């Protein structure tokens, strides 16, 4: 892995704050496979919008609509 963390790691780290590290890693693995057909370390810049979109319902349910949008916006910024 050159340089910093993979996009999958960044997303998992951000989600871990709310749903815990184990579940966050499982969520990134499951959703990247289900939505993109990729492993977390294979996620490219072009894949990010679709993956974040797939995480929106989960975050909206657990954190509410406003906070979910904030978390997603911060993630989008970090993954740009």
């Amino acid at each position: 892995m050159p340089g910093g963390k993979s996009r999958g790691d960044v997303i998992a780290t951000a989600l871990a704050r709310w749903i815990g590290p184990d579940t966050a890693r499982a969520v990134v693995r499951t959703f990247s496979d289900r939505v993109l057909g990729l492993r977390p370390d294979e996620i490219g810049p072009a894949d990010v919008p679709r993956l974040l979109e797939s995480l929106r319902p989960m975050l909206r349910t657990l954190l509410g609509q406003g906070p979910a949008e904030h978390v997603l916006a911060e993630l989008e910024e970090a993954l740009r």
Partner: protein
Amino acid sequence: MSMRYGWLAAIPVAGALAVAALALTTGREPELWFATQLVTQSLATVGCLAAAAAFERRDFMFRAWLLSAVSFLLPVVNKLTTGPHGDWLVGPEPAWLQVGYILAVNVAAVGSALLFVAAFFRAGLALTGSRVQGALDGAAVFVVGLGLGIPTLLRDAADALVAGGASQAFFDAVSVAGDVICFVLVAPLFRIARQFRGGALQWPWGLLAASNLCWLFYDAAATGARVAGSDALHSVSEVVLALASLSALSAALAHRQVVADSRRAPAPSRSEP
């Protein structure tokens, strides 16, 4: 962050200890139980409403916390309208009102617990863990839930039949039935909390599971106190009621804190280019 949630989790323990200390130092008069129930259930109501207010009305968790607030508010209204020495549930009021009240309280409590379990699956998450772990969880529910809840339920139902329906035993039986269902939901609530381990959401789900667990112990102690005429068991039931109500308060405050924290979550560190 976890320090703050730890303090919230200490509230129910401190509250229950305070109730126990009051019982030991001031006696076990109805006025004391009236006051402790009124305070703890009012606090739980306010906490649940505060948690609901942290969400928008269209949010799934808004409905869950609102239902939870209703399940605590109705007993508070009951107490405020009757005072420490009366109970319109066993008085001359119309039976439909009494039955409607007790059903509303239990439907709200069960509905709320169901929504908290449903939220996890609605979020697209799935319970993980080994078959052994699942079997152990199931066994724990069976042993505690059925071992404690069903005998209590049967005793209350039998006493209700003897008393001819609208008695304290009838309302206890309905209440225990609701609490047994809530207890069955304790296992998934605890498993959800365990799955959120290391994350902030473990606190609201874990504390809610603890609250639901306490209600079953409350039922068993309250029925035991009624059947045996035991003041000591009655005191235990009141301490457990405080623990259950204040656990719900802490769960609500924890979820409100999670929502507040997530609104100001800093951006995660950048990824590789």
